[in-house]
């Protein structure tokens, strides 16, 4: 049991340290590793949105996917699968991204922000916890997106091939790919370092299955603290890393934090939306990325939803900025919460109906037997 604890803390620690190191070597502050931001940058780089300050093909993402893919292959855990409510996953992924971009970061960046003194992350964590609690209420009442089934090999390779394509486009830099000339999108660690860190983190996460949503969910739902310990590992080592490598940007407070705003209500609600959707999806954006690398087509659909959400978030002016949250963004978060709740209630109703029908059939079967 202790070796398990050691592994999960070490995994969290490595993520936390790279979170600090990648900032040292060029990534935007508190964005050493951020899954939502990086998919948003990739969506921008591909021209799906035209926010000129957040366009870059982040090699870390390719690293996560290929690291998980390689490790899953070596360990015989690469299993092409899918078919578990793909459309609902797309929608939940879409709104998860909206929530994250109103808060300005995925749950992982939330931890990294706190580790650099950004107290707005505390509001985010409270919101995320509240969202996960709401999601758990659905799980307790029978919510499920259904069982996935084995898919063809081609489906399983979709995300790994996408990851390679992103790397090739990054290196070849054809004219139709957008690269920010200013803003966060222009700030990046060297490609080899970013890719290497991504590969290592992807491989480790494939082995340990660390998940930010899972950490909070299991702590609340089944009083299991395995993943939560890993999240604390991320926080502690990112804090140490920031104090050692990025001391000049380390600042405790709510005001003037990098790529953040201090609109508490919308930090709370943005992360609440991320929390509900992540629990209903069964994993945060980081975990979805790793699953997609393992051949999980449902996670792949979720990621396509995340990227579509990011594209709409910037095209429609939903994403927040250090200047604050836009009215459009507020409306989108409210719509997202309503949609997530509606999906939750609707699935519970369907599951209950199906169960009643099954029981009735079973009783009917006895009669036929007579």
């Amino acid at each position: 049991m202790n070796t398990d604890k050691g592994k999960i803390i070490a995994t969290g620690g490595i993520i936390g340290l790279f979170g600090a190191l990648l900032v040292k070597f060029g990534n935007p502050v508190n964005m050493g590793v951020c899954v939502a931001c990086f998919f948003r940058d990739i969506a921008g780089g591909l021209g799906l949105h035209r926010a000129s300050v957040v366009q870059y093909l982040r090699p870390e993402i390719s690293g996560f996917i290929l690291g998980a893919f390689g490790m899953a292959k070596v360990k015989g855990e690469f299993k092409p699968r899918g078919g578990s409510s793909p459309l609902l996953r797309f929608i939940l992924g879409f709104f998860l991204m909206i929530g994250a971009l109103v808060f300005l970061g995925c749950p992982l960046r939330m931890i990294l922000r706190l580790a650099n003194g950004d107290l707005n992350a505390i509001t985010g964590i409270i919101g995320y916890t509240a969202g996960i609690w709401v999601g758990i209420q659905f799980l307790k009442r029978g919510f499920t997106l259904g069982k996935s089934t084995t898919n063809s090999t081609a489906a399983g390779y979709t995300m790994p091939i996408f990851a390679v394509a992103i790397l090739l486009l990054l290196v070849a830099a054809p004219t139709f790919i957008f690269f920010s000339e200013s803003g966060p999108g222009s700030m990046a660690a060297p490609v080899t370092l970013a890719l290497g860190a991504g590969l290592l983190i992807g491989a480790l996460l494939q082995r340990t299955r660390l998940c930010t949503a899972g950490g909070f969910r299991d702590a609340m739902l089944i009083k299991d603290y395995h993943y939560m310990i890993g999240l604390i590992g991320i926080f502690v080592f990112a804090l140490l890393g920031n104090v050692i490598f990025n001391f000049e940007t380390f600042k405790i407070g709510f005001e003037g934090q990098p790529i953040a705003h201090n609109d508490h209500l919308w930090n709370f609600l943005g992360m609440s939306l991320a929390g509900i959707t992540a629990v209903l999806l069964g994993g945060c954006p980081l975990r979805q990325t790793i699953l997609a690398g393992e051949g999980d087509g449902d996670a792949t659909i979720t990621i396509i939803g995340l990227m579509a959400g990011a594209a709409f978030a910037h095209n429609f002016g939903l994403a927040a900025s250090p200047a604050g949250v836009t009215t459009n963004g507020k409306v989108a978060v409210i719509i997202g919460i309503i949609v997530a709740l509606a999906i939750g209630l609707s699935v519970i109703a369907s599951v209950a109906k199906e169960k009643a029908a099954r029981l009735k059939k079973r009783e009917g079967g006895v009669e036929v037997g007579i």
Partner: protein
Amino acid sequence: MNNYYCVMTFHSTYHALNFEKILKEFNYEVRLMPVPRQVSSSCGTAAEFQCEKKADILKICLDNHIEMDDIHRIENQKKNNWFVKLLNDKG
């Protein structure tokens, strides 16, 4: 302590919670946990119980319409990969 244990997996968290609730009513020791990696790499909840009680538990599940996925026996392997070695050397 046994160096193996059994886990039941489920199609949904709801079934896992139901399993725990009903078996506790029958005074069986059950512990919910994340699905062990040896079983599956998906994110989910499983229930740990004593393998010796498997037959009784299965009967209770059938009587109470608890929906199950599968039962797995997990061996606590002697761990000696490089990563654990590294941690042990340091510790």
